[in-house]
């Protein structure tokens, strides 16, 4: 539990750093890449509903701190997304990069739909451009799959190193 929480905090800190650096290099980046959502979804894929929804809330509220208008729009949307992905991960096998790509892309579409509903409820609605939403879903999915692959590779290397250490101790 503590390890998962520490991993989430580290993931969000790295997402924040990448988001800020990315926005500095490419000002339009936040339009087609939501790294906070990617981290929230990867965290939720662990399968714990509580961790999924709390991770989603944290990711969304950090995103809200960097954007204007009502504080909590992303927080609300990402909470639902985190919970939904965690529940899906409990029922489906979302273990491969392809599945992660689809999960993150669908999560992006769900988040955008919730944001539009919230905008209709609370503020003057300005529906997002559907083309940009599709681009964002694909970009988020691709980045999510890459991060998943990198995480799996890192886990494999760590496991191999651990086994090597154990072998040395036996000798």
């Amino acid at each position, binding site marked *: 539990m503590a390890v998962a929480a520490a991993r989430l905090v580290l993931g969000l800190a790295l997402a924040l750093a990448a988001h800020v650096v990315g926005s500095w290099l490419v000002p339009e980046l*936040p339009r087609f890449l939501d790294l906070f959502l990617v981290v929230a979804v990867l965290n939720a894929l662990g399968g714990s509903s509580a961790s999924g929804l709390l991770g989603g809330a944290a990711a969304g*509220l950090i995103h809200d*701190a960097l954007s204007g208008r009502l504080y*909590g729009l992303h927080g609300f949307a990402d909470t639902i997304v985190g919970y939904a992905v965690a529940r899906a991960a409990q029922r489906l096998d979302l273990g491969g990069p392809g599945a992660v790509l689809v999960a993150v892309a669908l999560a992006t579409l769900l988040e955008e739909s919730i944001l539009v509903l919230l905008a209709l409820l*609370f503020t*003057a609605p300005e529906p*997002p451009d559907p083309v940009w939403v599709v681009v964002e879903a694909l970009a988020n999915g691709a980045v999510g799959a890459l991060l998943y692959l990198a995480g799996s590779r890192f886990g494999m290397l760590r496991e191999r190193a651990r086994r090597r250490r154990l072998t040395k101790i036996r000798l």
Partner: protein
Amino acid sequence: MKESHAVWLLALVLVAQLLLLAVQVRGEGGKNLLERGMLRVVAPMPRLVSWFSGSVEELGEGFRSRDQLELESRTLRGRLEELELELFRLRNVEEERDRLAAALDYTPQVPGRLRPVEVIYLDHSSWLRTLILHLGEQPARVDQPVVTPEGLVGRVVEVSGPYAKVQLLTDRAAAASAVIARTRRQALVRGGSDLLELDFVPLQASVLPGDRVLTAGTDGIYPRGILIGTVVEVGDSGELFREVAVAPAVDFAFLDRVYLLERGRIPDGLIEGDGRGGR
């Protein structure tokens, strides 16, 4: 945690966030402790990146030839002379204005002091437009106008320690009372996707592409006479009012330094028909 507990937790978190949103919609957004706390936690990262990018630029500027420096120095000396002449002319205009004002027993609007502040983050995504400032030692206040030499940028909507969040004029929820410089026709400028909208301009009013739009100074936030933008499109398809599009004077994609306008705040009780728009 059991699944039934997770459902209750979900409901609790969602209700809390809905309440947070509802409180802001009611117009109490400036008192959002959670947003202030999060801004304080998150803002050091953009500040770090801004400092790093500034250092890289300074490093690049350090490697310049003597010829380049001499050329730059000559250019700057020329510019300084031009600005000194302009200052001389403006001082004369100011003196004349004061003389005329005294003769007419009229109190002219005193322009506020400008304080330069650093932009550390600019969010220019599709429908949430904001920037984060690093204020340094001196604090800012909510609703303080933010300008550049080109024109109006927006207003401060949240302050947390040395950081402030600014609502850009291009935000859909932003609004300012405006006046068309050529005809002195008053109107209301609202944020739009790329261009600003000039509302409440009657069909019989004269508006032409190229007309300059300034702040009217009647909304209790922005002082009179700051350039907002230029009229680029005039439509007359409305029943009572024209549809007027205004190109903002400021290029919001390239903001690295802005100015906070320091001036006394008008007491809330004196502002009738608050035209500042929601958050």
